[in-house]
């Protein structure tokens, strides 16, 4: 088997799933064994009918023999059904458990994992690879057992007949085994590549659909088609390669099994000629040898399917091996009542060796508003992402109500932080479901409506024929950018957390709506608000405004203080207001 240690672990994981479904597999296995046992009776009854009823004319036996035959047939039918159904049931159970566990595992991974992994790949692993495993591990187990039993029993009969000839018959076995193992190895390698390629195909198609607006806007349908074709052709190439491996080794196995029959005949013939063997034994022997051919060829098939399944297991194990970079504290501190006092104490954050944030310090007392401004890429989003520990800071410390956030249980911490992200993501569900996503089960109708009011959504929803029950598409298709942002805001508001983060969350709103929302937010005295924005109108009432530049705070103060300071903030102000009268751009102070 491939890469022994890794391979062992690979198989081990799956077997533990199979083990959990014992109660389906064991009866199925029992049915399988009993079925094989019954199989031996039918030829007996047939022989009885032919030899004794038909040829010898013992017609009295007919009814008995037929009754026996009928009973065996019924038994086989029932056992056959139980076997198939049992393996299907157990196999699908294994698959579903694997899917559930993988899903839960992936969910627990940190943002950085999702930053570098495409959704299409995850989908491919969760669906295609699990399917592959199900197929391999139900039928392979079932057929292997059948195969081994046939092989062992036939071999035993052969040895009973003549051990020397048996050795001749089994002479080629090691070669067949070697070929089967090599087949497994090569098929396994190619299947891993097919699996990866499948993930790529999935990603390409997924992006094509998710980015359909861009595709259409640039009229890139042809290009997308070719891109997909190229992926598919690569996939086609791999599949042909796999078929060629199969086409190379399987006929060899077939050849060797045929050859062993010929060998037995020739060697056996020689023995007969040398008077070491009777003709009768040879005839009987060669009949049984042909029975040996089937399980030997079957081993080729099984190795092939097993390799396919194992390739998928390897891929899934790689996902299971990924650990969340943001870890739960070893000794968590538990707080019951959060006030929302947030302190950044000389916080720095490096990513891949690059400084993203450097020496950030500020204090947000409960109920205060901190605004963050800065050019694109200055580190604004990174800063707020540290609060909920979506990424971990490199040095310094962040305190929430006096406790360093790394000491709080992750879920507890995140429950204290409501976030409206820049890239609005809504689910294809009703408006109400989308908003309720933020709250818990105790969320009342009044609270929901209050949030709608605060997010200036009430009138918009009232105008919809189906109101809150209106279904919106994936990512909020069918809504305007501003409507989406307001929904995301309402969703964050129903999460009654002491900290509220708005990451450029009102940029798609018209001024009037933004103003209304701001007023509503200011009423939320119990919440500490961190607001990232580009418009002066969105930040001017903050208790403190921070201007970020290349990861550092370069200017801080209130609106008035910063205006008086007369540098960056004042320039932005001038640009957005006075600048209107003198449209040409002046070089900036920074």
């Amino acid at each position, binding site marked *: 088997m491939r890469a022994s240690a890794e391979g062992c672990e690979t198989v081990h994981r799956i077997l533990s799933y199979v083990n959990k479904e014992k109660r389906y597999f064991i009866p199925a296995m029992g049915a399988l064994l009993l079925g094989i046992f019954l199989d031996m009776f039918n030829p007996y009854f047939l022989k009885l*009918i*032919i030899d004794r009823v*038909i040829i010898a004319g013992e017609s009295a036996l007919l009814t008995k023999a*037929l009754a026996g035959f*009928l009973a*065996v*047939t019924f038994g*086989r*039918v029932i056992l*056959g*059904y139980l076997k*198939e159904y049992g393996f299907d*049931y157990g196999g699908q159970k294994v698959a*579903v458990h694997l899917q559930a566990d993988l*899903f839960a595992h992936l969910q*627990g991974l940190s*943002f950085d994992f999702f*930053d570098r992994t495409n*959704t299409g790949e*995850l989908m491919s692993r969760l*669906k295609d690879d699990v399917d592959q495993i199900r197929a391999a591990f139900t039928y392979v187990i079932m057929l292997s057992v059948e195969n081994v039993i046939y092989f062992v029993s036939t071999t035993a009969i052969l040895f009973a007949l003549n051990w020397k000839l048996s050795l001749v018959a089994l002479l080629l076995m090691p070669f067949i085994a070697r070929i089967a193992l090599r087949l497994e190895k090569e098929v396994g390698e190619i299947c891993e590549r097919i699996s990866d390629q499948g993930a790529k195909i999935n*990603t390409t198609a997924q992006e*094509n659909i998710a980015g359909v*607006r861009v595709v*259409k806007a640039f009229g*890139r*349908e042809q290009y997308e088609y070719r891109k997909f074709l190229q992926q598919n*052709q690569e996939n*086609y190439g791999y599949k042909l390669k796999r*078929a*060629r491996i199969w086409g190379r080794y*399987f006929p060899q196995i*077939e*050849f060797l099994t045929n050859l062993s029959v010929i060998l037995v*005949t*020739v060697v*056996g*013939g020689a023995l007969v*000629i040398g008077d070491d063997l009777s003709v009768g034994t040879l005839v009987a022997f060669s009949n049984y040898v042909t029975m040996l051919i089937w399980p030997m060829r079957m081993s080729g098939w099984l190795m092939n399917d097993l390799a396919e399944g194992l390739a998928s297991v390897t891929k899934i194990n790689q996902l299971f091996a990924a650990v969340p970079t943001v870890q739960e504290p070893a000794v968590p501190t538990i707080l019951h009542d959060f006030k929302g006092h947030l302190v950044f104490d000389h916080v720095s954050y490096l990513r891949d060796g690059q400084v993203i944030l450097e020496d950030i310090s500020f204090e947000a007392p409960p109920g205060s508003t901190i605004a963050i401004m800065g*050019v*694109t*890429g200055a580190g*604004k989003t990174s800063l707020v992402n540290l609060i909920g520990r979506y990424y971990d800071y490199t040095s310094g410390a962040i305190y929430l109500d006096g406790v360093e956030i790394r000491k709080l249980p992750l879920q507890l911490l995140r429950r204290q932080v409501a976030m409206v*992200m820049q*890239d609005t993501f809504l689910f*294809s569900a009703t408006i109400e479901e989308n908003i309720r996503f933020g709250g818990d089960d105790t969320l009342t109708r009044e609270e929901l409506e209050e949030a709608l009011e605060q997010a200036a959504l009430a009138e918009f929803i009232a105008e919809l024929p189906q109101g809150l029950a209106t*279904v919106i*598409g994936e*990512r909020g298709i069918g809504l*305007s950018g*501003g409507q989406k942002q*307001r929904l995301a805001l309402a969703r964050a508001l129903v*999460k009654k957390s002491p900290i509220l983060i708005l990451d*450029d969350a009102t*940029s798609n709103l*018209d*001024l009037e709506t933004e*103003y209304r929302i701001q007023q509503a937010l200011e009423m939320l005295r119990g919440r500490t608000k961190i607001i990232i924005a580009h418009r002066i109108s969105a930040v001017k009432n903050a208790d403190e405004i921070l201007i970020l530049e290349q990861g550092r705070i370069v200017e801080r103060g*209130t609106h008035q203080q910063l205006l008086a300071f007369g540098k960056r903030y004042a320039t932005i102000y001038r640009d*957005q207001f006075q600048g209107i009268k003198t449209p040409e751009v002046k070089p900036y102070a920074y």
Partner: protein
Amino acid sequence: MPINRIEEDELLRPAFKIKLLTRLFSYLKPYKLQVALTLLLMGIVTGVDLLNPYLLKVAIDRYIATKNLTGLLCLGLVMIITILVSMFCTRKRISLMATITNQIHLTIRQELYAHLQKLSLSFFDQRPAGKILARVIGDVNSLNNLFNTSVTNLIPDLATIIAVISIMLAMNYRLALASFLMLPVLIVFMGAIEIISHRRWQIYRQKSSNLNAFTHEHFSGIRVVQSFTAEEKTRKDFHLLLREYFDAFIRAVRLNDLFWPSVEFSWGIGTIIVFWYGTRLLNTGTVTIGLLVAFSGYVSMFWRPVMNISNFYNTLVANLSGAERIFELMDVKPSIQEAEDAVPLPPIRGEVEFKDVNFGYQDGQIVLDRISFKVAPGETVALVGPTGAGKTSIVNLIGRFFEPQSGQILIDGFDLQKVTIESLRRQMGWVPQDTFLFSGKIIDNIRYGRLTATDEECIAAAKAVHAHEFITKLERGYDTEVQERGARLSFGQRQQIAFARALVADPRILILDEATAGIDTYTERLLQQGITRLLAGRTSFIIAHRLSTIVNADRIILIDQGRIVEMGTHQELIKKKGHYYRLFMAQFRFLAAKEKPVTQSG
């Protein structure tokens, strides 16, 4: 059609199975020759398989019994040659079949994908991406074994059955008919299973599709899930869907697993009938002992291929619903279709005219109400209004992503309905609200605007939108790989790349749909300078809420509730003291309102 939710099953269209099958197997047509060759190769292999037992018999009877060692060795050699031939035939057959089936697979998937590219935005808006994906990937995959088994099993097995039936009929038609007695029973039974189980497989595929849509959304939106600590809830929902999926599968296989036993059953009963009836005939002297013995051998020769065929039928039933879903998607007509006599739009100057345009995404809905305006080439038009006023709808109509319910849209005097879509969109540059980058290098993302653009042109565009600085600071510069939603880059940076992408397209009409919302004022200014320089003389439509973005436009169109309420330059509209004036002044009012006293903090 309403928007489809994840847990909601897709609608099913009853299909004629015969039609479905003919359509499915028509994909085999181009490979007639290869199929024939495959069958020939299989024939040779079967021939060898049949010949060898005979040769064994010859070896024993003729050489071993007469102690002729040389003869035995010679015969052994002959047999080895035959199995060598057989080996090469099998190898050839495997690679031939693999080529055919994988080719067909490729063809179907590409055909489906090509069709998908033709569909209009409204199609994509109506269903979760994961469900479309399930058809392109999962359903196509489900056809994997169908063609292979149909050629390598179905045809030879059918041939065997026909041969055996003729032999049996020729030997003794009564016994023959008696042994076929169970066949119609089996066929009826299987037909019945098929009818119920087909429906169950359809449900299974739908559930599988729902599951796919769920995973797609909840991993695309994983950041939202985590930030709302909704892992638990999501997991529960996933389990619910998984449970439905599992149940659907079990319901389907519970029935499908009956296939195999039912053949066994018919086989057994059929055999009993033959012996029972055969011995009776024997007693009346109608058949001889030898005939009956020979017949019993043929009975299993008859049932074995029947078993294979029913096995194939089983696979077919289980996967037919996949084929059905594929063809259903292939048959969806794009809601926006080019006119038969559509002509390519010649290079345009960029004059855009709306004549009494009414529009709604659904019938009866009014999103745009009698919109009329005319924009001269080179003009910059700002569309202003509250969210949901219809600004994005207007630009969507210019790109013909949707069709107006009535009225006309003209570009350079050409009615949009009469030109080819590609020739229109190729001359437009688009920076959408929702920035989407494809996974790949930054430079390739920029080049997406014009595939023939050189690296230099792409870099020039990046420079113009002020993106060059941050791109070159990245570890691998323009070769940095970004993911679909462009994580690692900030939102504003992604918008800048989307700008560069629109610029390299060298569009005659540029559309910026809240494209600078995530960009700070400073970068926006620089970016606009760059655009103005690069696109001097191009028509542009800008949707924005920041008034500083708007004031420089040649014309401002104020929209509210789908109607144009005001139109003119900034100066004109200010002088007019209407809606725009109020809007403009409001920002100062908002600024002045509730001015906080300077606190001691900071």
